């Protein structure tokens, strides 16, 4: 297991120059994701056309894994509908948590497969999945347009 498997160039690139960074105004749905463990915070704004995400942006502060993951995610889901996003989200979660797995992630993940290295660092799974939880909440809350997603807080607050 090499560190370079976690911090691949594509991850470092997306961290340095995140895609779809900023906020959509106006937007159809927004969520705030919050990972108290490391203080990661991000805000997603979405434009929706029917059940399709026509545009998406994120803004926030966090570690390289969380920023790169959000950047890659916005690229991957733009233009996709609910069903396709759900499918992608499941694949990503499976990839991130497949500790000890050595086979390559499914080809349909595309660039998202760059996050496969996370599976060897269980403490970092929450960093990579924060944006996906936030997206899930944004799609669920599209009617009432809100929601703060706090993940990863249950097990981490003592020392």
């Amino acid at each position: 297991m090499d560190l370079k498997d976690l911090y691949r160039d594509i991850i470092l690139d997306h961290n340095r120059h995140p895609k779809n960074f900023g906020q959509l105004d106006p937007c159809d749905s927004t969520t705030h994701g919050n990972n108290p463990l490391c203080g990661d915070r991000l805000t997603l704004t979405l434009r929706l056309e029917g059940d399709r995400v026509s545009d998406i942006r994120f803004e926030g502060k966090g570690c390289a894994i969380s920023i790169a993951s959000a950047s890659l995610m916005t690229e991957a889901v733009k233009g996709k509908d609910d069903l396709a996003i759900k499918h992608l989200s499941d694949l990503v979660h499976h990839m991130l948590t497949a500790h000890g797995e050595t086979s390559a992630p499914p080809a349909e993940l595309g660039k998202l497969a760059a996050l496969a290295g996370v599976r060897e660092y269980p403490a970092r799974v929450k960093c990579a999945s924060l944006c996906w939880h936030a997206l899930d909440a944004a799609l669920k809350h599209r009617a009432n347009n809100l929601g703060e997603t706090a993940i990863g807080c249950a097990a981490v607050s003592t020392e």
Partner: protein
Amino acid sequence: MNARPAEIPYDVARIRADFPVLSTTTRGKRLAFLDSAASAQRPLAVIEAVDRYERTSHANVHRGVYQLSQKATDAFEGARERVRRFINAASLKEVIFTRGATESINLVAQSWGQRLGPSDEILITWMEHHANIVPWQMLCERTGATLKVAPINRRGELDIEAFRALLSPHTKLVAFTQVSNVLGTVLPIKDMIAAARSVGALTLLDGAQAVAHQRVDMQALGCDFYVFSSHKLYGPTGIGVLWAREAILREMPPWQGGGDMILTVRFSGTTYNELPYRFEAGTPNISGAVGLAAAMDYLDSLGIERAHTHEQRLLALATVACHSIDGLQIIGEAKEKSGVISFVVEGVHAHDLGTILDDEGVAVRTGHHCAMPLMEFFGVPATLRVSFGCYSNDEDIDQLVRALGRAREVFG
């Protein structure tokens, strides 16, 4: 105390051999364990004492007439005496076993705290661990009392004038840490206790980060409550201590109800047990107490002052090394510090840094360290924290510096 003669150098290699985990590897690298402030490692003496107890002496305490139960009771009460001696408490009645510092503080908040009302105030500092914030917030919610917070300066030192100004006859309790778990700041506890006393307030001292690094003496400190956890003192988890003056404990209502804390139970009314048992409902952590006693023996055999001197040398060495690293900023530069260094590195998030260090075998804490208000004060979401124990050595620091160099390579 059997401190070794001062001329024999502190033999850290021999001490390291007492801690089995230090000779293990992590991710194929030598383990540089620099997270003792979160939880210290256990020496063989502790592991074996617990093992021996489990193999030869376990039964429930204070109950059976049979010999084995008596052995367990002797071991448990023997541990209480060991703690009493370690902190120089006046009496065994003042030594209450809890699950740790957190539970000790909650005990005080829930039992002693019942006397508070809307005009009362509790004063803490900006440097507290959540364990010394949240129980008081909860208490204030229940009683209508007010929680006040004494500010700190950018170096991470208490603003003692502001602290004094916040004290008033309304202040009923001042609760503060002896050493900051995030910054390493050693607080001016003598002045703080004296100031609190001058307005008639009681004081609770959170000794979680202090007991393993300096001798604490309940007769000399002058505080009213003192709390700590065994696991930061090279002992097992799940056990800790509340010390309080007997006169105060006598006035405190029972906390949890159950076995061991009662004398007689009738449906028409129950009478409570003597101190300290009145505050120890249910079967206690017997093996934990045995392990804690063994840890105190171990630390005394090392000489706590000698360990402290060693840790201070490492602190100075590591501070200089940190200053030489590009973009590294130390958070907390108080004049008097314990063996703790928090820092951030420009352009690399603390969490990424933690992972890279882990890959190099360096175990450090990353995050908010259960002190979110403090993180907010310094305007950082998270820091890395390096902390030393009696077994830490120069090689640990070298490995840390190399690993930080590696982070620069990765992040450019």
